[in-house]
């Protein structure tokens, strides 16, 4: 009945279907996907409008103008990173909350298929949450994220890859340590935030912190965004460097997930997960 085979898109589809059923069953879950990005975008958007106005009125240029010109873009890209990671990790934790993880791990579902389903859900949740908000950004503030064109593809690809690498490690930790570790899903990216230079250039950091900042792919994306919005430059070099680091991070995230899954098997904790 079930051929052993390798990777099965059917099994990935089964799990995606499970998450879509869940999403469909609860309108608050759907609304929550749009609510926070929209609220944040409006808050920061009005702040950007205010800063721009002040900078224009007083003839200030330079740093103020840069900050004022990139706030909305930075926020939308930060939310891309954050919501994509959350989409991955929360979908995984649904299995823990519902005590369904053992059912999945004794089915023919491979870890790679499980991860592929989580990646798919991360993209679906991201699309539901952010596409309407980019429309609002254009409508309220005239900021067209899609107008970034090719640069946006590089930004999006790199941010999503980073979010998946972090999502893999967080999911592995939750698998190994139980729901006590679930807070990581919400908090881990905020630890990265000051070093990723979301709202200010890398040059604003002390020299020793800049080394740390350049080890994080999102730093390249936010620098790239400032180059695109302020200098109208497409910094392909930054995107290529970010991609190289992301490939390393994805390999490390995948290895961590498998290692932590194996460790949970050794600990014998998978049958009691969620209790």
């Amino acid at each position: 009945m079930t051929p052993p085979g390798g990777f099965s898109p059917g099994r990935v589809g089964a799990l995606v279907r499970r998450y879509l059923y869940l999403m469909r069953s609860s309108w608050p879950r759907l609304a929550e996907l749009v609510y926070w990005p929209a609220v944040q975008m409006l808050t920061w958007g009005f702040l950007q409008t205010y800063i721009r106005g002040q900078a224009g009125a007083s003839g200030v240029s330079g740093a103020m103008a840069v900050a004022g010109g990139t706030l909305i873009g930075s926020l939308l890209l930060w939310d891309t990173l954050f919501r994509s990671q959350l989409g991955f990790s929360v979908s995984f934790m649904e299995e823990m909350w519902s005590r369904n993880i053992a059912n999945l791990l004794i089915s023919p579902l491979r870890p790679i298929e499980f991860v592929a389903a989580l990646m798919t859900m991360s993209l679906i949740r991201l699309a539901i949450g952010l596409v309407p908000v980019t429309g609002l950004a254009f409508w309220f503030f005239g900021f067209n994220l899609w107008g970034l064109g090719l640069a946006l593809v590089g930004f999006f690809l790199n941010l999503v890859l980073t979010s998946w690498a972090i999502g893999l490690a967080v999911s592995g930790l939750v698998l190994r340590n139980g729901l006590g570790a679930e807070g990581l899903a919400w908090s881990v990216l905020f630890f990265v935030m000051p070093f990723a230079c979301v709202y200010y250039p890398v040059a604003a950091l002390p020299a020793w912190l800049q080394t740390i900042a350049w080890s994080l792919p999102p730093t390249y994306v936010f620098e790239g965004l400032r180059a695109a919005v302020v200098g109208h430059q497409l910094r392909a070099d930054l995107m290529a460097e970010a991609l190289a680091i992301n490939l390393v991070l994805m390999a490390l995230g995948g290895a961590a997930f498998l290692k932590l899954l194996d460790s949970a098997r050794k600990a014998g904790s998978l049958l009691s997960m969620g209790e």
Partner: protein
Amino acid sequence: MPATPAIEARRLVKRFGATTAVDAISFAVEAGSVVALLGGNGAGKTTTIGMIMGLTRPSEGEVRVLGTDMARDRYRALGRMNFESPYVDMPHRLTVRQNLRVFGQLYAVARVERRIEALAEDLALTAFLDRPAGSLSAGQKTRVALAKALINDPEVLLLDEPTASLDPDTADWVRGRLEAFRRARGATILLASHNMAEVERLCGRVLMLKQGRIVDDGSPHELIARYGRTSLEEVFLDVARAPAEGGGQ
């Protein structure tokens, strides 16, 4: 040449730190038989089932299911087996039908809708197929979990206390369905239980576990005769109260 056992454990050990939960047990379960792992709390029943499914990694030893080494190649066997336990749930917000559809697809069940209808009729689920799984009573949830465990028509079915928390009438009904499934499919069932009535009714063979070891092995009638008792419950109490190394009478 003897047939390959459906389940084979060879010198299976599981240690958790300094505690040995399963201590070098070996047994084989013939295809088509129903075997119980019977023992008190902490005897190692659930850990043994976890190792058979590949959910728990043995510290030592080997498990084979349908001839497949579960440590190396468990995906060859997982599609041909299934598991039910009241301690593992299904997503509460999904309806029963949605849950069964998802698991049917995971197990690559052909004509899954027809399979769901057949299981619904057989396990009396039709009335609540479109209700959220979380809104069901304990008895209804057990029947749904059983439907999930039977969705792929498994050759090997592992059950961990399948009738725990059920009233006697529902528990008896569930046992009847399990017997009917085994007869129709010729499936192998390995059952972990505390429930003597269940074991006596369903199982042709009992492996008695105590502190991670198999301390006796036989049919319910053989065990009752061997211990000079009148019921399996009395045998269980004898075993539970005997010193750890003691086995027979």
